[in-house]
């Protein structure tokens, strides 16, 4: 795979898909068994020192010093990268300004969202050309996640190439391009738009009053291929694309479902991923 300069590239997949391992290889922290990888043209094995100078990295776990204050953490990482906070303040200002009121607080005492902002500030302090973020939004609430992606968009506009991993499918739509990963393999790489457009099967959204019974009934129906819950609707595919909405509707009416709704729906990236998973298995 290739990531273009200035791109916001997403590695999407569940735990165990190999996202972290790939990032660590790119970060020169692990050595691959086979094959090669370059960052800005530098080989991840031979030129690891150069890469370590120009990449910003935020590992999956919160990896700052909990017993140091916000300010001390930031200053420490600045000196480690032979720079100062004031020198690159422009880049981190938008993010850091939100945690600045707490700069005397120990990092361990920050809330989840603030920790994340501090970690991002520290990863950015040396003006990296490439930013690698390993599951920055895992376990973070929806509001903080949204804010975080807005920050990433801003950074991208400043010309930083960003490689980010996430288990949340909905975040895939926010990337320029994504790689869908599962069990160490890349299932597909494309823009989210193309991935969704590449989904050619007919997809129906179905709901009724009793969703659980609805799933069970649909799965027992011989013309159903898959039926999965998606928010308030079920997303259902037929055995082949000839299966019409009315067929589902009639079947479910016979099963006494109330307030039935059946209609065509555009797939989401999650549908695409699940389809790919299905093919894999």
């Amino acid at each position: 795979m290739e990531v273009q300069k200035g791109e916001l590239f997403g590695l999407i997949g569940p735990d165990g898909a190999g996202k972290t391992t790939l990032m660590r290889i790119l970060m020169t922290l692990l050595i691959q068994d086979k094959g090669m990888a370059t960052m800005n043209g530098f080989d991840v094995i031979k030129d690891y020192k150069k890469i370590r100078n120009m990449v910003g990295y935020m590992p999956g776990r919160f990896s700052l010093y909990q017993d140091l204050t916000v300010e001390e953490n930031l200053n420490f990482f600045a000196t480690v990268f032979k720079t100062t906070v004031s020198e690159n303040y422009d880049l981190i200002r938008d993010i850091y300004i939100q945690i600045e009121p707490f700069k005397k607080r120990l990092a361990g005492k920050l809330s989840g969202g603030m920790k994340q902002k501090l970690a991002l500030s520290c990863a950015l302090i040396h003006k990296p050309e490439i930013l690698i973020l390993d599951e920055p939004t895992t376990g973070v609430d929806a509001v903080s996640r949204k804010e975080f992606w807005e920050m990433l968009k801003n950074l991208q506009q400043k010309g930083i190439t960003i490689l980010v991993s996430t288990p949340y499918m909905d975040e895939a739509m926010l990337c320029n391009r994504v790689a869908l990963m599962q069990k160490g393999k890349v299932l597909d790489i494309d823009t989210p738009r193309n991935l969704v457009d590449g989904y050619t099967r007919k997809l129906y959204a179905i709901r009724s009053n009793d969703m659980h019974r609805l799933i069970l009934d649909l799965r027992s129906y011989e013309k159903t291929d898959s039926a999965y819950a998606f928010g308030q609707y079920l997303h259902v595919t037929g055995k082949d694309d000839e299966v019409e909405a009315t067929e589902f509707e009639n079947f479910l009416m016979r099963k006494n479902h109330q307030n039935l709704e059946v209609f065509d729906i555009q797939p989401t990236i999650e549908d695409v991923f699940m389809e790919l998973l299905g093919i894999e298995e």
Partner: protein
Amino acid sequence: MNQQVPVITVRNLVKKFGSFVANDHLNFDVYQGEIFGFLGANGAGKTTAMKILCGLSSPTSGEAKVAGFDIYKETEKVKRNIGYMSQKFSLYEDLTVAENIRFFSGVYGISPSDRKEKQQKLLKDLGLESAKDSLIGSLPLGWKQKLAFSVAIFHDPKIVFLDEPTGGVDPITRRKFWDLIYEASDRGITVFVTTHYMDEAEYCNRVSIMNAGRIEALDTPENLKKQYSAKNMDEVFLKIARNTE
């Protein structure tokens, strides 16, 4: 779902840590067999409230009853009647599936003959019969989560508390997990669940959204979306969080 029988009642529940109010006058009921979504931003006070309801922590003031037992005086009875599963701790990785089941059966006083019977059914339902003597650590995450849930309701608790049960698994496994939740709910077990996946909020019968220690909204996903004129729960959540900031 039986709307008439509350299994959790919370009245004016307050929990303070020093001057910090983690739970500010919580009031809600959860009914038997209900799937109750307990949402909120990080640090909104979800974990604190959940600990209180599980009998692990005492509130500063207010009343709460879980499975009909007072959480101040009858914590032991509360604990007997609930199940708990979190993403962080579920089962012992270095014990086999059968050993884990035996251990947790022992904890809840299930007789060996009952255990054998239920264990067989459980493994059959999950399709894990062949994995009976495998170490938990060697199983895929999705299986572990399913097992952890099944073990959490092995003693037929009235309520099961799930703390972000589906973190980190692929979308199909996540949905299969919800099938189990629905089944438990059909059997009359109340499911009290926290999650960061907003689409999962839609699967709940009712959802409460916490912010800064207070419950800002509590209703069916349908009504919440109408009330906040939002397309989905994600928007509802964002609106509530933004409003109160």
